């Protein structure tokens, strides 16, 4: 009788231990992914701050490129207003695309291309793009790790009960940008 009780107690203790351990791992990985999203956010905010300046500078030389400039301004407003991860990803991809068009248009204006202010802004933006790419890769890595651990046995059995029922979304780059990044991080195309 006593031995049966002890055996049951030990089994319950082991199961509890495993569950608590797995839960704590999930919490830590979840937290880590959220934190690395904050790193992306910092870069996104910096990029948004540079844009009004850029638009003003370009306007001085190429004011009739209204459509392109408006697209950038609108995309910036949308990006600044986005709150959820999905909205942010979408808005930022739009912004990246419209910025790409703006820089392409600017190619036709030699005076603009020689403007030191414009050059400085372009350099800063490309620096931010690079940091953004690194932060995004780290975030996607953290997300894929969270998702993988969440789906592991035995975690998958109770993940739903403790609020980790679904996979975290990746920060997916837009289709247009993906083409230019195919040589780059292999992990980015990982939207399972």
């Amino acid at each position, binding site marked *: 009788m006593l031995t049966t009780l002890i055996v049951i107690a030990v089994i319950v203790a082991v199961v509890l231990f495993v569950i608590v351990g797995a839960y704590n791992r999930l919490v830590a990985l979840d937290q*880590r992914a959220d934190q690395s999203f904050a790193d992306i956010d910092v870069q996104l905010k910096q990029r948004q701050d540079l844009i009004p300046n850029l638009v003003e500078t370009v306007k001085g030389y190429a004011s009739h490129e209204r459509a392109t400039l408006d697209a950038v301004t609108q995309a910036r407003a949308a990006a600044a207003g986005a709150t959820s991860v999905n909205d942010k990803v979408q808005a930022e991809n739009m912004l990246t695309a419209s910025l790409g068009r703006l820089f392409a248009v600017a190619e036709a204006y030699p005076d603009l291309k020689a403007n030191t202010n414009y050059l400085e802004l372009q350099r800063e933006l490309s620096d931010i793009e690079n940091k953004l790419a690194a932060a995004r890769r780290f975030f996607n890595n953290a997300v894929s790790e969270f998702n993988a651990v969440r789906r592991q046995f035995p975690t998958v059995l109770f993940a739903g009960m403790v609020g980790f029922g679904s996979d975290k979304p990746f920060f997916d780059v837009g289709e247009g940008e993906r083409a230019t990044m195919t040589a780059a991080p292999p992990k980015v195309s990982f939207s399972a």
Partner: protein
Amino acid sequence: MAAVGLQTHIWANNTRSVLLLAGFPVLMIFIIYGLQLVLMGFGFLPGTGRGLGDDMALAASWLGGTVPLAFVVAGIWFAISYFGSQTMIDLMTGARKVERKSEPDLYNLLENLAISRGLRTPTLRVIDNDSLNAFATGLHEGQYSVTVTRGLVNTLTREELEAVLAHELTHVINKDVRTMVIASIFAGIISVIAELVFRGLLYSRGGGRRDNKNAMPLILIGLAFAAVGFALAIVIRMLLSRTREYVADAGAVELTKNPDAMISALRKVEGRSSLKGPDELQQLFLDNQPNGVGLEGLFATHPSIQKRVDALVRFGGGRDPGPWSGGAFAPTPLDYETSTPVAG
């Protein structure tokens, strides 16, 4: 649980380190038991006068007294190295302390990393030497120090240097220096005991005051214990050291968010890291490869560069440009060259 990413890779290696460290006290008991058996076999310690099993049981019953004694010795040994380590390391490597004024870029890199983790900036030291290496030293806050060679500073790009500093800073954060000092003290004590056993065998053929009818089997079993314990102590120490290197590589990626820089830094260091130092220091190096061949995988303080790069590619999502042959690595889309001056 299997590693599926950077954080789980770090967890897996940390769990492994704890298990390995726990192995040392077990080995110590093991080898003390071996010593007792040998001493009993030679008649320096009294036997039961009955069968081999009884003698072995008697030796086991002494462990209650001898093991605590051994741990007291280990504690005293640790206390001495605790206070002596920094001075010893400084004397042996000729590392020079540098301030912000003389190396502003390097100092700022380290300081920024330390601030991002809420640490007091460790002392920065430079060895004027052409080899490419770095190490972290110090057993407690205020004593922590990160040392890099001049060759490293001259050869690596800013991002790579940051990755190396982050690797060393991770050693500081994880208190790996202390872990490795503890490991080398245990390994040291175990090898002293093993040496006592082997030497005893050479010099005391005559035996002690008492005769033991189980002399031969006792000595042989004791010797086997000593030999296995001695070998395992070294293997565990090296395994532990290699585990900490993986964690430090992964930690550097956590800090810098840039696995590629850590990989290319390792590739540049590969084969160019030779730096002299005592064993206690060599295990702290950024890279340290044994000169010999053969069992080097088992007795190396560091995993091979290839293995470390593979781990970073697999768990950190980095890209491996392959072995370095001088010059710049082909720029990758993420390899941002910062021509801007570093913001203070």
